[in-house]
């Protein structure tokens, strides 16, 4: 099966509908009409730029280039999480917590699936390594972001309960455990849901892409299942890691809740 290549003209045809949408929103006084246009243009520029970078890296197969783009992707993802937090932990600790949690899970799982499961030659073949890390970072980012946000909000709103439990002789970790666990549950809901309804409600994005580009459905499905498992494991473990780090960082060495370490955006 041959891949049908899309041209700029093809995209221009489709973009008519975005312009139309923007126009309708404008006439309805909804607002947001310019935002949609700007987002569409950004989308085009960013992705074309990405294509050039990927093409460059795929051609060279240089380990240091792959490592470099991996780190850049990691830092952007960590920064994005930090930006989306309603309450941040002082001294950029939110950024540190998000980035380290992301790094440990996504880099390990990407390395593991390349070395043990997919086994391209060499294992860091960028055509596999870069998109795999990218999809893990993107999805794990959403999970951590939700987990950290829920946790810090809960700590702030239930600060008096945490202190009351300390007064009654609980250790810091005992006092915060219910809040940590409920934050982990909240952050896991979208992951469990998306795994559970996959294939019933929609065809997952990555599989759609593979099928459109001519891959057999069964081959695409196996890749998709692997991706689901990786995303779930990576999100789940990094949610645990990040909330655990938060539960350490809001207390001092005498198990006192220092609520001023949380600053509102």
């Amino acid at each position: 099966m041959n891949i049908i290549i899309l041209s700029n003209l093809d995209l221009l045809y489709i973009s008519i509908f975005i312009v139309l949408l923007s126009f309708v929103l404008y006439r309805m006084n909804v607002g947001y009409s310019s935002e949609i246009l700007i987002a569409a243009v950004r989308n085009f520029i960013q992705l074309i730029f990405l294509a050039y970078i990927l093409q460059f890296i795929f051609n060279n197969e240089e380990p240091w280039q792959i490592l470099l783009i991996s780190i850049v992707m990691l830092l952007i993802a960590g920064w994005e999480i930090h930006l989306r937090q309603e309450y941040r932990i002082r001294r950029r600790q939110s950024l540190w917590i998000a980035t380290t949690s992301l790094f440990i899970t996504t880099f390990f799982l990407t390395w593991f699936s390349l070395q043990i499961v997919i086994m391209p030659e060499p294992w860091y073949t960028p055509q596999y390594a870069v998109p795999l890390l990218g999809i893990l970072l993107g999805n794990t980012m959403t999970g951590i972001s939700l987990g950290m946000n829920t946790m810090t909000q809960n700590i702030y709103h239930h600060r008096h309960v945490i202190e009351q439990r300390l007064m009654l002789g609980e250790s810091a970790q005992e006092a915060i455990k219910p809040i940590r666990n409920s934050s982990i549950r909240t952050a896991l809901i979208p992951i469990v849901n998306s795994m559970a309804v996959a294939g019933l409600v929609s065809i997952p994005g990555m599989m759609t892409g593979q099928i459109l580009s001519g891959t057999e459905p069964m081959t695409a499905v196996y890749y998709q299942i692997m991706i689901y498992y990786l995303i779930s494991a990576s999100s789940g473990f990094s949610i645990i890691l990040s909330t655990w780090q938060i539960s350490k960082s809001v207390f001092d060495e005498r198990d006192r809740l220092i609520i001023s370490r949380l600053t509102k955006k």
Partner: protein
Amino acid sequence: MPAKHQLLVDNLNFSVLVDSLTSSYSLHAESGDIIGISGTSGVGKSLLLKALADLIPHQGNIQLNNQSQDTIEPYIWRTKVMLVPAESQWWLETVNEHFNILEEHTLSKLNLTKAIKDKQVHQLSTGEKQRLSVLRALEKQPDVLLLDEVSANLDLNNTIALEKVLIEFVQEQQGIIIWVSHDTHQLERICTKCYQMTYEGMF
């Protein structure tokens, strides 16, 4: 009879927390003492109690039975020196879940019936919460009780009942109470020592 306790506070200072509070405070108390502390709002009475329970950063020396606060695990210290805050918190569904055993005769001392055990915490009145929070603290058998306006929302009848229970604690269980209150009549009625806390010190 439990052993006697003594609490020593020397040069306690909150300037690490609030720049404007520069004064240092000293106190001494032993079993049987009810120390009353009054003072204008914002002078740091609640901070004093929180520092004694080691819930906020502070400077100075605090000792219980000759053991310094920072040499004892924080959760053990707080079980011995227990703070009952002005607004108590209840995080489980019913009253009963917050206690190990809530006995009827203990409840009746504070004019509460045993039906309260099964009440949802959001159904409790402020006065009921205040009395229950004292019982919850007493159940942990602390050496020192730090009370922050715990009878502020009680009528005279219930206030007297609560005072009785607390006097029992200092006399029969060798407890120490540090009681912060705006009600100077109450403090004169029950305290063995009364202090006025000011921005300059304790008088």
